[in-house]
């Protein structure tokens, strides 16, 4: 091999190295599956409130003109317990309203979970069958969505919000909207 050809293998390797370096350092998690909901309207739903089974809440509760977080949680989910403290911070220190969706959970147990740890949610609706979870495209609990004032999903946090860095990322997304 002579001329330029002999540099081709080297160039391919350098290019691959750059791609690897980028995907390792940009905080990318290969297990994370991107949400297809981003920049699309939040799914329509009508679910009973945890507090009162006679009252149905719809997606109208998301369109308040202010950014709202939607958090999927369950009493059986250990990471939800871990992120609970961050939700309290977001709700009470940062003043962001959070709608909780109790995912595939017994309402009595969901209530007990909130009673023992504190309730960061403005409203909690019950998704006993997991139908809303399918509509939102959650890949597991916990998962948190940021919905803007017009009901458009703007950001999705995959997995538990644990630590200042994770809270910071959610806050940055909220501030982007304002």
């Amino acid at each position, binding site marked *: 091999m002579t001329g330029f050809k*002999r540099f081709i293998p080297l160039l391919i390797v350098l290019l691959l*190295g750059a791609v690897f370096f980028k*995907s390792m350092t940009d905080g990318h998690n290969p*297990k994370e599956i991107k949400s297809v909901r981003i920049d699309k309207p939040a799914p329509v739903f009508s679910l009973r409130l945890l507090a009162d089974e006679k009252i149905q809440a719809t997606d109208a509760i998301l369109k308040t003109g202010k950014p709202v977080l939607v958090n999927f949680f369950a009493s059986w989910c250990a990471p939800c317990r871990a992120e609970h403290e961050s939700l309290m911070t977001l709700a009470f220190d940062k003043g962001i309203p959070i709608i909780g969706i109790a995912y595939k959970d017994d309402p009595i147990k969901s209530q007990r979970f909130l009673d023992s740890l504190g309730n960061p949610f403005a409203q909690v609706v019950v998704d006993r069958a997991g139908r809303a979870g399918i509509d939102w495209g959650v890949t597991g609990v916990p998962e948190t969505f940021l919905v803007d004032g017009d009901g458009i999903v703007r950001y999705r946090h995959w997995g538990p919000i644990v630590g200042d860095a994770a809270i910071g990322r959610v806050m940055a997304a909220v501030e982007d909207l304002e």
Partner: protein
Amino acid sequence: MIAELGHFALIVALMLAILGATVPHYAIFRRDTRLMALSDPFAYGQFFMAATAFGALMYSYIISDFSVLNVAANSHTSKPLLYKISGVWGNHEGSLLLWVLILTLFAAAVAWRGKGLPLRFRSRVLAVQSTLCIGFLMFIIFTSNPFLRLDPAPFEGNGLNPLLQDPGLAFHPPMLYIGYVGLSIAFSFAVAALIEGEVTPLWARWVRPWTLAAWIFLTGGIALGSWWAYYELGWGGWWFWDPVENASFMPWLAATALLHSSIVVEKRDALKSWTILLSIIAFSFSLLGTFLVRSGVLTSVHAFAVDPERGVFILGFLAIVIGGSLALYAWRAPRLTPSGMFGVVSRESALILNNVLLSTFAAVVLVGTLYPLVLEAINGTQITVGPPFFEFAATVLMSPLIVALGFGPLLAWKRGRISRAAQVLIPAAIVGVVTFWLVIWDKAGGIMMTGFGLALAAWLMVSVLMEIAERTKLFKNPKKFLTRLVRLPRATWGMSLAHFGLGVIVLGITVSEAWTSEQLRVMSPGDTAEVAGFEFKLEGVEPIAGPNYTAVRAAFTVTRNGELVAPLYAEDRVFSDPPMPTTEAGIYPLFRGDLYAVIGEYLGDNRWSVRLYFKPFISGIWVGAGLMVLGGIISLSDRSRRIGAPAGRRRSKPKQPAVPVGQTQEG
């Protein structure tokens, strides 16, 4: 104390590696042969120290010394001894230590067996090998030390992933590693040759047995892994084109190509530049595999615990090793001028076709594996590349390879006459075509692909037999057939066996893909289900207890036309440390195919979900791989038996080199 000894041995090994990587180059610069000769003891010393460190870690595992973090995180007292030992390489740190052990083992082997190499060249090779050792030892010592202590020591360890507690998997990683790391010798030879600026037929003769040995282990390791997936994962498949499976397959493809291209270098003094490049690429693929499982850039069932610091370190090391060697190649390649010329229809061009197809396939697998990653880095789109892509590529690229494989060994060097080769192979072609049409006619599989696959397998196997017949003049002069058969060089037997093995693999894949019968049933004890003419009767389900698991075991009896064929036992195990369920498929291999049963969930009311299969001739996949390994071993044994013997000049000369490697007194 023992762990500290291991830690200390690693540091000494690093010092020796640094000396081993620098002193020989200086010695060659000064033309000081006494100093050059030091590269041997440096290699032995590194091996001794790596073995000490590995032994120390293994000892800590065997006595369950949970004050060592690595042992506490990956072992448990209730594990059987075999899995305490295999647990040593069942984790990131331990597997790296195994990697270093094999790396130094190969270096020591070159020092020991390579006395026939010119001293100057041998010390260059060992210096390159020591450079590789430096990288891995630094990686271990600075980011992945297996000897870190834990204070206070826990009472009990976390245990090993139960999926790995399996005899097949106890030996799959070491075999694969010997294969991966064995390619480092071809790499070191290539880089040394580039530094020296010269590639001779002798170079190819030295490098081939090392490549062949690595190839044997790589083949065995991959086959063992897929066999494990087949009986342990319980989904009936055996290969998934998972990124890490691909990572082991790419070096195999490159090593196979290298094995064939170095024949051309040795025999005809041609293809030098390409062979050097291939040696670098083959080992680079090994390094890429190691990188992929440890860096967390891709998801896979095989991935080790992920740590970005490690990922960046190993990426930097890779950039130096692969980038550096390819830069050296770009600089030096123009010096490697070919001297041998050959015609279009010749053994050489058949081998070139083999190389083009194998390396194209390796490139396609690389693209398929990394495409999702590259795409996401460019525009954030997430996609996956699945089996259909790879299967299509395999069909398109491997079919012409198999067709050419029938011709190749019959073509003469320099100028072959296709007509003569064709005469011999016409019977093979006829058998292939007839099989093809029979299947289309019968519509048994209902698909063209099955007929095509069967025709390829038949073509390959018959042409291998025809080639042996041709070499032994079976049809021209049958009297001396047996004498000639016995006299065939082992290298020829090895080649024929390996090629025949490929035919058996193709047959196994085609038949099992086309005619597998599957039943998903809910059964209670006493129920029967029919699969492909076999009656599976569920006799009963009972709980059993193993050393560190509890299980339910379903007992089936399989009958055919009222006659007992075999009992089958399928288990669903739940391990205690860590808690995790695994399936153990009940498999009974018959000549015609495998009976395969998996027990699933308990549905209440004494009913169980079960999956029952009959997989015709699926064992052909592993039998074929076994034949390939056997062929490699026989071919390798030929070389070592012919110590010092001159190259044969007879017409029935083996296709593969007759002169042993590292035993000649040249230089």
